[in-house]
């Protein structure tokens, strides 16, 4: 699964720690989601979408579909 976390974070000039704080998860989780090593649960994906104010499908895409 691919994601635009890095881009969205850069647009807001947020550090990983800041995003982790917004999501109330560890910085480790934010980093692992960004690298794709770890796929977030649906509630966490919704939380990420809410924090960035965008629909989930614009943040996360199925890598195999590309």
């Amino acid at each position, binding site marked *: 699964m691919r994601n635009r976390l890095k881009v969205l974070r850069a647009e807001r000039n947020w550090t990983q*720690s800041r995003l*982790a*704080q*917004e*999501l*109330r*998860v*560890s*910085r*480790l*989780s*934010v980093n*692992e989601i960004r690298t794709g*090593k*770890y796929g*977030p*649960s649906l*509630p*966490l994906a*919704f*939380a990420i979408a*809410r*924090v960035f104010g965008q629909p989930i499908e614009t943040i996360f895409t199925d890598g195999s579909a590309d």
Partner: protein
Amino acid sequence: MASTEPEQACGGSPPGSSRRDIIVAAYCLGWALCFTGAMQVIKSGLVTHRPIAWVVAAVPSIASIWMLVAYTRYLREADELQRLIQLQAMGWGFGGGFFLICGYLLFESLGAPAVEPATLAAIMPVLFAFGIIAGWWRYR
């Protein structure tokens, strides 16, 4: 949709809070010291009065309640990745320990030196610790 709050949706661990990790590690260390101390006191025969020896023997069990409560609280407050790491470590600890012990029992029946049950039981926390390190290494 059940919840809209990130803290409820994700598990709610404040980022960068290693305080709980330190607390759990301190409890583990405290229990290990408690257990080793009680074992030494009982084996050395320092306590001759039997009721007091029973109290000494009960101390690690009582301390383990605090440890379990702290660990449960840690799991409740951890985020989903931290929980995944803990789950995989538990798999290593219990699964790996169980299979190693069962495997060694076969060797023992073939003449391998007998090992104390306490030594065999120590395999589980060692494998659990290995699982934690492996998890942090994998998701570093």
